[in-house]
């Protein structure tokens, strides 16, 4: 249900595997985030994602449990890359299945806001200008606040 992967993965393949186990759920929402090829400071050459196990996994697991308590979900999947990755590669994949369309949308949205602002990861972007650590934007914290405590 939750995986931190050191190697590249294909979100479409992840969706295929997810769909194979959700017989009966009417609605499936997936999100995938990809390494952007350019930042404000210029082209991005690599993105490095640091996790702190098992804190990272435990936190994501709790967020998934909160989502399941809040929405009627039949399945949830979270995949997150760690280590070094290249522009275009998938960083994160979230999928939520439910009998109800809005539940699937909201749960995926909620989990992404959690991953962006609370999941135990640190991100370093490297480009021609050197490396810089990236923290969540004000917007990310605002998005997160939509769901309450």
């Amino acid at each position, binding site marked *: 249900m939750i995986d931190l992967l050191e190697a590249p993965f294909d979100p479409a393949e992840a969706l295929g595997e997810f769909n194979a186990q959700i017989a009966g759920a009417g609605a499936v929402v997936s999100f995938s985030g990809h390494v952007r090829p350019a930042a404000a400071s210029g082209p991005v050459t690599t993105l490095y994602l*640091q996790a*702190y196990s098992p804190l990272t996994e435990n936190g994501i697991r709790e967020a998934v449990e909160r989502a399941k308590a809040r929405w009627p979900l039949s399945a949830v999947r979270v995949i*997150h890359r760690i280590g070094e990755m290249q522009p275009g590669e998938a960083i994160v994949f979230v999928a939520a299945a439910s009998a109800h369309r809005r539940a699937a949308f909201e749960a995926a949205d909620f989990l992404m806001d959690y991953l*962006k602002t*609370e*999941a*135990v*990861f*640190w991100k370093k972007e490297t480009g021609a200008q050197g490396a810089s650590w990236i*923290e969540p934007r004000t917007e990310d914290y605002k998005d997160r606040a939509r769901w309450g405590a």
Partner: protein
Amino acid sequence: MVQLLFMGKLADVSGAMMVERVLPDEVQDTAALRTWLDEAYQADGALLEPSVRLAINSEIVAEPAKVRDGDEVALMPPVGGG
């Protein structure tokens, strides 16, 4: 001896992600630990910031919390993945 983990950008402060240090006698809790490390690494307050949370033995702690010999203490700047 404690194992200190400087996560994310804090590795730039300490020069290494993982450091082992012998705790001075007067460092018994997280408040004293922060002050001691901030001075030792000339971090100019970076390790005192409330946005930097501490985890002891893989659990985020409410501070001040006791620090004991043998602990793994992670210094965690603001998190965020995705």
